[in-house]
């Protein structure tokens, strides 16, 4: 008898040093269904999918394909079994064309391995027509939009005649309108008999597109439900283990005078010409949280680089507390009262091989309390200062001040950065995706800290990609689209839908600074 399941993962356990990423997890994917895999960051979703895709080997448990037990040792095996995956961070070679990326690994070749691109192109064009996946096969990846890059990834799977398609957080980088398109594509694929695994932590999307949903929490299997028979509240409770109050408690804002004024800022981009910041003006006042919202890659990073001095401005002016800091160095901006929680804590925020105490003083090491007149570090005062902050901000680590930053968990690394940046007593705090990759508890903590800064009369500029955060935390929202600010919204009056239209560039106002 033919198995009703396209694939089954039975009692999978996968351990990493010090942590059980998957603990006895079972997931059964029916033929032709869209099956959602729900869980918070770190719940073990990606690990489980990596096991199915052959990137990791499970210590325990078996995988079946069409009812037959199989061994998947590497992506080649997965591919041979008809399993394909769109990774969260696209696995595309930027300087190759769309076509080269699609055929890479399964190139049609003539004698001596010479490529037959004509053949490949015809197949790709046929597929793209059949499923409504519009791409330009000869464009280079670095020149096309994120949406088209994702379609390239989908075509990669279809080109290999994959039957089981894994989508790892596919909507994180898309506009709401692109998300709608993607869901239609997923429905088309399922209708053609493909079986789809859809990894997400966004409840609305799961309810909209999935047939069934399996929930993981902290590496453990919680349950599988039919989406028809459940509610968002129930799914949410399964995901986090308790009913979470999504709303941040805060008093109404009492904005004072302007702390930061940005006038006609233009910043060149190193990667994409369409991402650069174009003639952006806005103001942040004391006692308010202003949030820059937008889909990833619409110039928010460059805006922050320009603001904090990591990149020079092409034109425009930045005024901090009435002083022109357009040409000021990074250090000067920092000492003039600007704190910066960077987007990437490993790239910018920490020196991972330095101890925690050395990371705590990263922005202030040169001050006379840490360095004496001869240029020697004052070890004792560094240690006591670090101990004080660790205590005050509840930064947990194995050996306290002397722990290597590398040995700390992501949440505690982020707390250390926040301790450092807040204890500088900044007048303006620039926080870029401060909650990225953190668990619910840590997120709540950080949001409270942001509100506390606001209530203390400081200015806060928050850059966020998470819709929930954008709706809850700030007092004003500025939406960025293709390097421009296209709208200013009041979070109390707007809706997620309206926000989405701005983020997608479908709606725009003339925004006055």
């Amino acid at each position, binding site marked *: 008898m033919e198995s009703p399941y396209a694939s089954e993962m039975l009692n999978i356990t996968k351990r990493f040093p010090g942590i059980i990423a998957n603990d006895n997890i079972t997931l059964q994917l029916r033929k032709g269904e869209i099956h959602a895999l729900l869980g918070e960051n770190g719940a073990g979703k990606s690990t489980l999918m990596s096991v199915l895709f052959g990137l990791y080997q499970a210590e325990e448990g078996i995988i079946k394909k069409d009812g037959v037990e199989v061994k998947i040792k590497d992506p080649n095996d997965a591919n041979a079994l008809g399993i394909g995956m769109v990774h969260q961070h696209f696995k595309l070679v930027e300087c190759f064309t769309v076509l080269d990326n699609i055929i890479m690994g399964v190139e049609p070749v003539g004698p001596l391995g010479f490529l037959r691109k004509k053949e490949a192109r015809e197949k790709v064009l046929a597929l793209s027509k059949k499923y409504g996946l519009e791409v330009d096969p000869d464009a280079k990846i670095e020149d096309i939009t994120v949406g088209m890059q994702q379609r390239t990834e989908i075509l990669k799977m279809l080109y290999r005649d994959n039957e089981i398609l894994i989508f790892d957080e596919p909507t994180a980088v898309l506009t709401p309108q692109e998300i709608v398109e993607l869901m239609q594509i997923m429905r088309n694929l399922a209708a053609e008999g493909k079986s789809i695994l859809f990894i997400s932590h966004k409840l609305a999307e799961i309810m909209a597109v999935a047939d069934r949903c399996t929930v993981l929490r902290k590496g453990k299997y919680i349950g599988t439900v039919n989406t028809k028979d459940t509610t968002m509240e129930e799914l949410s409770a399964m995901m986090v283990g308790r009913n979470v109050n999504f709303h941040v408690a805060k008093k109404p804002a009492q904005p004072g005078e302007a702390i930061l004024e940005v006038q006609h800022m233009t910043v060149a981009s190193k990667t994409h010409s369409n991402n650069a910041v174009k003639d952006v003006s806005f103001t942040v006042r004391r006692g308010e949280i202003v949030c820059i919202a937008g889909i990833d890659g619409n110039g928010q990073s460059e805006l922050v680089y320009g603001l904090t001095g*990591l990149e020079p401005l092409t034109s425009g002016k930045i005024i901090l507390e009435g002083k022109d800091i357009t040409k000021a160095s990074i250090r000067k901006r920092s000492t003039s009262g600007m704190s910066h929680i960077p987007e990437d804590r490993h790239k910018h*925020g920490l020196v991972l091989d330095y101890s925690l105490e050395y990371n705590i003083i990263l922005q202030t090491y040169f001050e006379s309390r840490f360095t004496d007149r001869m*240029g*020697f570090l004052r070890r004792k005062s560094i240690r006591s200062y670090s101990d004080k902050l660790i205590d005050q901000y509840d930064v947990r680590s194995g050996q306290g001040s002397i722990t290597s930053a590398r040995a700390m968990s992501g949440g505690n690394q982020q707390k250390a950065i926040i301790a450092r940046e807040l204890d500088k007593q900044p007048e303006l705090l620039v926080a870029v995706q401060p909650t990225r990759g953190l668990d619910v508890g840590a997120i709540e903590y950080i949001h409270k800290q942001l509100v506390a800064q606001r209530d203390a009369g400081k200015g806060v500029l928050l850059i966020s990609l998470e819709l929930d955060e954008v709706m809850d935390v700030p007092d004003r929202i500025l939406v960025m689209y293709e390097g421009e600010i296209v709208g200013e919204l009041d979070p109390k009056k707007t809706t997620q839908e309206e926000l989405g239209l701005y983020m997608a560039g479908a709606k725009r106002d003339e925004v006055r600074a």
Partner: protein
Amino acid sequence: MKRLLKRPGVQTFVASIICILLGLLIGYIVLLFINPQGAWQSIMDVIRNFFTWSRPQQQLKQFGNTLAKTIPLIMCSLSILFSYKVGLFNIGTAGQYVAGACASLYAALAWGWGWLPCMLFAIVAASLLGAIVGFLKAYCNVNEVISGIMLNWISLYTANTILSNVKETASPYTLYLNKENPAALLPNVGLDTLFNKNTYVTIAVPLALIIAVLVSIVLNKTRFGYELRATGLNKNASRYAGMAENRNIILTLVISGALAGLGASMLYQTGYMRWECTQSSVPAMGFNGIAAAFLGGLSPIGAIFSSFFIQHITDGGQYVNTNFYSSQISDVISSVIIYLCGFVLFIKLTMNRMLSRSEEKKGGKK
């Protein structure tokens, strides 16, 4: 014992010893291939170096010679490791050494300067060369290894040209320092008497040791060192923290150059060596500095010992039986050691893994 093995310093030491032993083993195998008969004798000669002399007096004198050449090697390895801490591979140390030699010899022979001005002049010349590498790296993004190599050759030919003005007419060598300008010789401060009147043992010896300690202090205890190491470990984070990256790159290479130039002056101003104005390859001192720096676990204090070891076996090479072998066998050994230093990370990782595995076993039994 286990706790001792866990300390990073001890691990580095063990890894270095493994590299040395393997290097010597490979050297021995090479000798065996060439001629099995005298191989053991010759590898032992390499290891014994000055102890091959029978009379203690002679041994002491030869020891002094090795010491005199160890000094510039220490300086070169300090030069390499200092820049490496900032993430720069200053292979241009070799050329900066040449610049230092050229400056100190020319100042001594053509202008009759005293020893200290000559030494300072060598430092200035070499640090200028380092500044070029730093400038190209900081402002033009030129890979420091390639620009370093190019400058090595440029400085070699420049030195040959300039020093031809102060060479003997009959030979390609520069004039004797002790005859032309004894004031340029480094003072012995009594150290020569300790080494059977070996006048090549000079003030350079204590000076080099002091500088090694100073480098260690600068790197580990000062704000400057904090910045430099942060830059080397995470360039982006150091930029984010407002450290002046370009300034630090250039400053590092200037200091790195200065160390190499000082090293050259510390050898050529003892009168131990003269410059050969027709030489067609860059002196190996700078490159051996790489070996010493890595063998010493990139620690300034470690560099003192590793430098002595490298120089010891390099000098030992001259005692091999030249009827069968050549002295370059020492170069083979030291380059094999550099190669093996590339595996130090792996050796340490394996050690840690073995340690934690044996600990797990113990824990299980309890």
